[in-house]
C-alpha cells in the first residue's frame, strides 16, 4: 500500500491550468523531492493534497484511503502534516505554545474550555520532545517574535513532527536560510525516522538532492520527468526546463 497516491489530478483557475493530470505514487518511508521552475504548480499540488484547494478532477489516496473529498482539517487526523513556504506561525506566542497548539489539534482536549492548557503535562512534555528533535528545546519558552528565521523554520518542522504524521509535506523548508541555518534544518530533516514518508518541494538542489531518493519534475502543472536522482538529473528535459545547463 502506497503512502500517497495521486491519480489524474487537475486544477485550473479560470483559463489557467495549474495542475494537469498529475499522477504521483509515493511509497511508505520514501523521500520524494518535487522540483520545477517558478509557476510549475508545486505549491498548488501541495494545497490540493492537503485539501486547502479542491481539485477539478482526480483522486488523492492517503495510505490506501481516498481522501479527495475529506476536509482539510480531517486530513491532519488521518496522518498528514505540512509546513508552509511562507512561515505560518503564531507570532504572539512562545515556541512551546506553537507546538502545543499543533499537538492539541489532534487531541479531543482542544474542545475543552475549562482546563489550563499550560498544566497539561503530557502535552507540554510531547511538545518539548518535538522541539528536542529539531534542537530547539533549550529556547522553548522564548517568544516567537525573538527567534531567527531559521529557528522559525525549525518550529514549523517541530509542529509537523509533533503531530506524528505518516506523510509529511515540506514546502521549501530551506527557503531564505543562511548556510548555518540550512545545515541545522538539514540535520533535523535527516533525523526524521523512516516511518514518516516525506515529500518536499525545494529549489536548493545541493541540499535537496542529498535528501531525495526519487524526484518528480513539474512543468506547467504537468509531471514531465520522474525517477531516481540520477535519472532525473541526467534527463535532458530537466536540464532544459529546470537546471538550465
Amino acid at each position, binding site marked *: 500500500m502506497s503512502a500517497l497516491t495521486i491519480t489524474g489530478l487537475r486544477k485550473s483557475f479560470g483559463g489557467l491550468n495549474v495542475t494537469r493530470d498529475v499522477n504521483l505514487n509515493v511509497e511508505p518511508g520514501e523521500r520524494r523531492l518535487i522540483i520545477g521552475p517558478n509557476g510549475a504548480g508545486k505549491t498548488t499540488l501541495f494545497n490540493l493534497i492537503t485539501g*486547502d484547494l479542491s481539485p477539478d478532477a482526480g483522486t488523492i489516496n492517503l495510505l490506501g484511503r481516498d481522501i479527495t473529498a475529506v476536509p482539510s*482539517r*480531517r486530513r*491532519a487526523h488521518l496522518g498528514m502534516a505540512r509546513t508552509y513556504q511562507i512561515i505560518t506561525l503564531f507570532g504572539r506566542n512562545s515556541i512551546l505554545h506553537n507546538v502545543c497548539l499543533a499537538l492539541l489539534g489532534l487531541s479531543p482536549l482542544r474542545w475543552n474550555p475549562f482546563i489550563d492548557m*499550560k498544566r497539561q503535562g503530557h502535552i507540554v512534555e510531547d511538545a518539548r520532545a518535538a522541539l528536542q528533535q529539531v534542537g530547539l528545546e533549550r529556547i522553548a519558552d522564548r517568544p516567537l517574535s525573538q527567534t531567527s528565521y531559521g529557528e522559525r523554520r525549525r518550529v514549523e518542522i517541530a509542529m509537523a513532527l509533533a503531530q506524528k504524521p505518516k506523510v509529511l509535506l515540506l514546502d521549501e523548508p530551506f527557503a531564505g536560510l543562511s548556510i548555518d541555518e540550512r545545515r541545522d534544518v538539514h540535520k533535523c530533516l535527516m533525523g526524521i525516522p523512516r516511518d514518516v514518508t516525506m515529500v518536499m518541494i525545494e529549489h536548493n538542489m545541493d541540499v535537496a538532492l542529498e535528501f531525495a531518493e526519487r524526484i518528480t519534475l513539474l512543468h506547467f502543472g504537468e509531471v514531465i520527468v520522474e525517477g531516481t536522482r540520477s535519472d532525473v538529473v541526467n534527463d535532458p528535459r530537466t536540464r532544459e526546463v529546470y537546471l538550465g545547463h
Partner: protein
Amino acid sequence: MNARTISLAIAFLLLATVPVWIPGIYYVNVASQVLIYAVFALGLNILAGYGGLVSLGHAGLFGISCYATGYLLQAGFGHSFAIIAALVAGVAATAVFAVLSLRSSGIGFIMITLALGQILWGLAYRWISLTGGDNGINIKTRPQPFGYSLADANHFYYATLIVFLIAIVMVTIFARSPLGAALMGTRDQPRRMNALGYHVLAIRFWACLFSGLLTAGSGILFVYYTQFISPQTLSLTSSAEVLLMVISGGAGTLLGPVVGAALVVIVKTVVSGFIERWNFLLGAIFVAIVILMPEGLVPGSARLWRLATRRRGQKTPPVKETAP
C-alpha cells in the same frame, strides 16, 4: 505573594468596598453601570479580541435578553424563570447570529452582524405588540435573592459585582484553556489551524455562544438596573459604544474591556455633568488612545511602564568596584 496577586487583592478590596468609599447612591449606581458594561464588553471581547471577529450587532443580542426579561416579567412570570429564559433567548439568538454571520470573517462579518443588529433594532421599534415600540417595557420590581431586595442601590451593586466576578473568572479560565488558545489561533492563522486539525468554524461558533451568554447576562443586569427597555438600547450607537470600550481598553486582554467600560461610562455619566461637550472629550480621548496606545489602554500602559522601568534601569550609574 507576588505583585500580581497583591494588585488583584487590592482591586477586589476596592470593588467590594465601593458603597463605603464612594459618596452617595448616584455614584454607586455609576459603579453598577460600569460593571454591567464591563460584562457586556467582556462578552464582545471574546469575539472581537480573542477571536478577531468584530461584531457591530452585539447591542441586538444585549437587547434580546433585556426584552425577554421585560416581556416575561410583564407577562407575570417570576424573576428566576425570566432570568433563565432571557439567558437562553440571548444564547439562542447568538446561535442564529453565528450561523448567519460566521460564513465570512473580517469586513463581511462586521457587515452581517451590523445588518442583523439593525434588523433586531427595527423589530424592537415596529413589533409594538411584543416590544411596546417606542414606549418600551417597564419593569416594576427587582429580584430579592435570599431576602435581599435589589431595589437598594448598594445591594444591586453587590449583585452586579458578583456577576462581574463570575464573568471575569469564566473569561480567565476560557482564555487559558485549549479552546481559548484555539480561538486565538483561529484569529491569528485560521488556515494554519485548519491544517493542524482544528474545526475553525466550530471553534468560532462556540466562542459566539460564550460571548452571547455574557452579553445576555449583562443585558439582564441592565434591564433590572434601568427597569426599562426601549429600542434605543439595541441601536447601532450602543453596539459601536461597547466595541469602543473593548478597543480603547485593549482587545484580547482580560482587563482591557473593563477599563474601557469604566472610561466610557464615567465620561458619559459623570463627566457629562460637568462638561457640556462630553462627546467631544470622549472622541478626543479615543483619538489620543489610538495615537499613543494603538493596542489599547491596558496593554499600552503596560508597554509604557516597561519602557520607563527599562530606561530608569539604564540611567542608574554602574556600581563602582572598590579595591579589596
